[in-house]
């Protein structure tokens, strides 16, 4: 009997038997305890073991670590801060990143242009004009932007060969994307045009002027504004009425690309 009293779960450690018995120990409990002891010898005492201390310690460490991690790797809790290594209180560097126009242009080209002009830019003879080393691409960028924004239709002549097809407008692309893809086909080595870059500012300007136009351009219309398409155009000898003031941004290397 003394043995079973030691195993007795009531009262738990730290409480004196007297107060315990007064407040909570009833016949019902006594009966339960004894019946369960009779049925099973070693069950009860295990039932009241607290959590091992080592786990309490572990949970403390976890909570501590979590707090530090949350403060230290949260980019100052800014909604637009994606770099978790930015330290709290540190000024976030949100100056715009330099965009590699060639890389962007290559991506825009491969997503929008390859269906007709092909991935090598050579088009399909007689159906889709080539973009490699052709007069159109080397001509006035303003004209190319117009073609990009509103499309091109009707008979045209590229490097002397006739085409009669329609190009869809790409006005949905951003100024930067249009500038990038034009820069790509005009300056990338694989296109052999050896011309100069097109800036987003130029695209924005043309879009403001002509962006509402929905009909595709035709070659006679473009030649009326920009003069004959020869590829021999440059800002310095420009034949357009409007390009003098807006194309100063073109590089100096434009001068070298006159002859092709």
């Amino acid at each position, binding site marked *: 009997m003394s043995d079973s009293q030691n195993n007795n779960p009531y009262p738990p450690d730290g409480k004196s038997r007297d107060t315990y018995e007064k407040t909570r120990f009833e016949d019902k409990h006594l009966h339960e305890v004894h019946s369960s002891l009779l049925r*099973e010898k070693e*069950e009860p005492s*295990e*039932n*009241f*073991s*607290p*959590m*091992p201390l080592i*786990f309490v310690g*572990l*949970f403390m460490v*976890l*909570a501590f*670590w*979590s707090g530090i*991690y*949350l403060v230290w*790797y*949260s*980019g100052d*809790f*800014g*909604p*637009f*801060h*994606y*770099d*978790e290594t*930015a330290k709290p209180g540190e000024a976030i560097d949100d100056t715009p990143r330099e965009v590699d126009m060639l890389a962007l242009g290559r991506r825009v080209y491969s997503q929008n242009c390859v269906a007709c002009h092909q991935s090598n830019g050579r088009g399909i003879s007689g159906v889709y004009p080539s973009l490699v080393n052709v007069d159109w691409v080397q001509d006035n960028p303003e004209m190319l932007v117009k073609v990009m924004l509103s499309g091109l239709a009707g008979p045209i002549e590229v490097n002397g060969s006739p085409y009669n097809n329609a190009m869809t407008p790409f006005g949905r692309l951003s100024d930067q994307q249009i500038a990038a893809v034009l820069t790509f086909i005009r300056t990338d080595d694989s296109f052999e045009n050896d011309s100069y870059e097109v800036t987003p500012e130029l695209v924005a300007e043309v879009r403001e002027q002509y962006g509402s136009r929905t009909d595709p351009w035709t070659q006679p219309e473009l030649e009326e504004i920009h003069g004959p398409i020869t590829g021999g155009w440059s800002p310095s000898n420009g034949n357009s009425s409007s390009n003098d003031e807006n194309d100063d941004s073109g590089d100096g290397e434009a001068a070298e690309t006159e002859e092709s």
Partner: protein
Amino acid sequence: MSATPSIVSTLSPTQSAGDPIRAKLSEVDESMRNAAILFLASAVLWLMAGTVFALIAAIKMTNPSFLGDHEWLTFGRIRTAHLNAMIYGWGNNAIFAIAPWLMGRLARTRIRHISILYTAGIFWNIGVTIGIFGILRGDMIGVEWLEMPAYITPLIAISYGLIGVWVIIAFRWRQSGHVYVTQWYLLAAFFWLPWLYTVAQIMLVFEPASGVVQSLTNWWFAHNVLGLWLTPAAVGAAYYFIPKVLGRPIHSYYLSVVGFWSLALFYNWAGVHHLIGGPVPAWVISAGTVASVMMVIPVIVTAINHHLTVVGLHNEGWRSPTIRFVVFGAINYTLASLFGSAMALRSVNEVTHFTHFTVGHAHHGVYAFFTMIMFGSIYYMMPRLVKREWPSAFLIQVHWWMCSLGIVLMVFALQVGGWIQGLQLNAIDEDGTVKYTFMEVVRNTVPWLWIRSISGFMIMIGHIAFAINVFWMLLPVSKSSSKSGPTLLTKETAES
């Protein structure tokens, strides 16, 4: 609407004339029988369908041209069909069979108006069938874990609602004073799932959020279906079956309260760790990481309770199929959760993201933990429902060995292979270029994927054995096999 008060009054056992206040366990079993058998039978059928889908998908990983000219069986559809058949077909049906039964038993109250549960079950399965069919047809929604087409959402939602309400009714009119920990888990799960499902349906399907909010919602939903639906159901079941079968109270009951509330607190946040490296505000991901790591607390607490209850009685695992499956599941709950916490760390996630490691982890959680506990629960529940012994101990052995060895092999192959894959994907040469081309890395995973297919085949054999046993048991002809002594039903057979 005069019928309403009468229905409500029939729900309350105290008001039915002549009923004892506390229903006997055998009466609870009896009241739940038809609906539970419907859910179980459909769960097993879905399990078989999902296994076939899984095997086809696994073979396609090593032989891409396998069944390649059947549009319906292309990888994108068959893998998705596998996932949905397993989660909504097998997993949910198993929970719908076990949870109301457990709730009724613990609340000491009979499940009333079982025909409503039965009808809901039929509609649920019609909904899932149309959903899987829709996926195979190509109607799927491009949101992971929510691919079933939108036109079945009402069907699924309404039938789920009825089932959930029935569980809550069983709880509401409980005749036992104490709410056992299993009831906490089940009740919470039956509130959490509709919450998850509604928010996900609204924000992803009917009024889709734009941009990064969409993927945040997606992973919040997908991870929580595992963590706040499958996990509480299986952990709750383990909390019942381990002490029940062993005849020994849970090791430290008050710890289970800690475990429950810390799960409720932390799990909800953890899903975001799927978006580590994505264009999500840094603090959101950090919060997800912290919550995933804090999940160690409920996991360890649950592990203490589950494993220390078994200590000293391991031999029962050889005698009782329920203990064998449930303890296997409980061990893997501990392992899979600790792995999961580790995988949420940014430095580990760098390696495991986009590799087979994640796939292995998903199977560790849903199969080695959840499904194995469901198997164990079914082994306990079925004899009590149909009052008949399992027809074949041999088939149970086949089921056990094939499934346990199969899943261990699968998790091992996918996690080791996936880890190597991740290291190779990240490897950089001295001159700063990648060390392995993408195709080299892919080729190096092929042997591991073969092991996965083999383990999947083993699991399928196990499932076939299980299905034969279940349907054999349901057939009346198997009565003859019970004569050799329905060992675990002595009392009930003596009474009936």
